[in-house]
């Protein structure tokens, strides 16, 4: 009887352990939105020039996560479309069923949605057009939406609206990032907006609502703000 009880407790403990520990064949990725190394505040932040800026909306797509070993794909996430929203914390972290034994040393992903997906018709989940990330007047996903207010904007209420997208050349705004993969059980993908926010000329352009050269340039600048760390 005693042995049976011990075995029972051991089985429960083993099951609990399996649930609480990260599975060895998966990896959690958590996206952190930052300004100068600190969590992006819900309140106005002060730029180096003394002006203030506050982000009210930040939503963007990360897609097609690929793990590479010496430039060769060793694993690709199926159905890899993630809509991240600064106001919905559950969208900022998910588990990838990737096995570390594959010894990848780089992680590649897109900021935005690729051109093939843009022309493939209606899709569900994070790609459902009801998510507010699809242009109605001209077909195409909005790769990134950033909206807020900045003293420097000469618009009504000093508001800015950046809707960055466009999938056709020469104004394809999709950005492909390939970052060194650090050792560690989990990954922290940081988007630190400091460089982007501090170098944008808010006096000139506060609204981008369609594909074009500016959308491409701002998308490139944002892509340079990502970094990958072990967690």
């Amino acid at each position, binding site marked *: 009887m005693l042995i049976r009880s011990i075995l029972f407790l051991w089985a429960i403990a083993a099951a609990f352990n399996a649930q609480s520990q990260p599975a060895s064949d998966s990896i959690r990725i958590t996206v952190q939105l930052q300004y100068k190394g600190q969590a992006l505040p819900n309140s106005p932040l002060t730029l180096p020039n003394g002006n203030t800026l506050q982000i009210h909306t930040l939503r963007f797509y990360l897609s097609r996560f690929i793990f590479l070993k010496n430039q060769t794909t060793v694993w690709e996430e199926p159905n890899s479309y993630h809509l991240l929203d600064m106001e919905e914390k559950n969208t900022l972290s998910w588990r990838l069923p990737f096995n570390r034994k594959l010894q990848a040393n780089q992680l590649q992903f897109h900021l935005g949605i690729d051109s093939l997906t843009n022309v493939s*018709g209606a899709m*569900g989940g994070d790609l459902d057009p009801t998510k507010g990330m699809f242009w109605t007047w001209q077909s195409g996903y909005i790769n990134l939406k950033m909206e807020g207010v900045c003293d420097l904007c000469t618009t009504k209420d000093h508001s800015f609206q950046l809707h960055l997208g466009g999938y056709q050349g020469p104004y394809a705004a999709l950005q492909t990032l390939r970052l060194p993969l650090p050792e560690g059980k989990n990954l922290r993908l940081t988007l630190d907006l400091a460089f982007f926010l501090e170098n944008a000329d808010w006096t000139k352009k506060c609204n981008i609502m369609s594909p074009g050269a500016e959308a491409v340039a701002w998308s490139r600048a944002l892509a340079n703000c990502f970094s990958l760390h072990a967690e």
Partner: protein
Amino acid sequence: MPWHSTPVVLEYPASWPKPAYDFTKNPLTREGIALGRKLFYDPALSRDSTVSCSNCHLSYTAFTHVDHALSHGIEDRIGTRNSPALMNLAWSKSFMWDGAVNHLDFQALAPIAHPAEMDFSLEAVVQRLQRKQDYRAFFHAAFADSSVTGERLLKAMAQFELSLVSANAKYDRVMAGEEPFTTQEQQGYLLFQKNCASCHTEPFFTNHGFEKNGLPPDTSLQDYGRMRITSLTADSLRFKVPTLRNIEFSYPYMHDGRFRKLRQVLDYYSSGAALNKPILLTANEKVDLQAFLLTLTDRAFLFNPAFAFPRE
């Protein structure tokens, strides 16, 4: 009872090319088409529930807005373009006069959101329909799930629009060897092949491209067509080539509906104002050409009860 839907195979003449639409991602079913038809005729898609797709796309007039140069949406708001006729959409790769829409699934998004049309949003439509019991039943029949989603709504609407095949005009029967043209129609057909077919290419009577036909922009509309989409100056004043099928019923003509009569269109193209190389036609040749164009009328399509308002 297990869910079951009834597959539908799109029927079209064997001589036609394969459709551009990828049916593997949205297989036609009787239930999907029925849901799409219900949506097409439902004013609940507009903000104030007054305007449905059929307001500007009436089945009996080749799914266009007869007598209206520019279509009107809710609250009598007037748009900037003539509503296009809808047929044989499975073979189109772009939609709207400027090709702004890249896939039939996405086409409905534009009129739903446009302030001068339905002035609503897909999100709001989904929320509204989710509260309607009859729609939940229709969505379950079509997709084995009663939840209304944007993807399913758009795919169902695309299914109904895909079913709008016009392939039974006199022209089609002549091509199939079932009927002859009259002498006048045959002369008109030869004139058509010589002068019009490069843009209005058979069997769809459009090359699905964007062309300049020399029309000066309306000074109040200032519509420069495809350039708005591509930002290329070469695309200034290029508009999608419309099909000529059922042209007898799809007046008024051109992207801004400036011509009320087919005769006016032929007069324009044979004038020095149109095209780099005007189509020179005598008065008799215009009559012959018009006789041929009337052979593109497909009454079986226009008066098909399966395409009309769904009376339950």
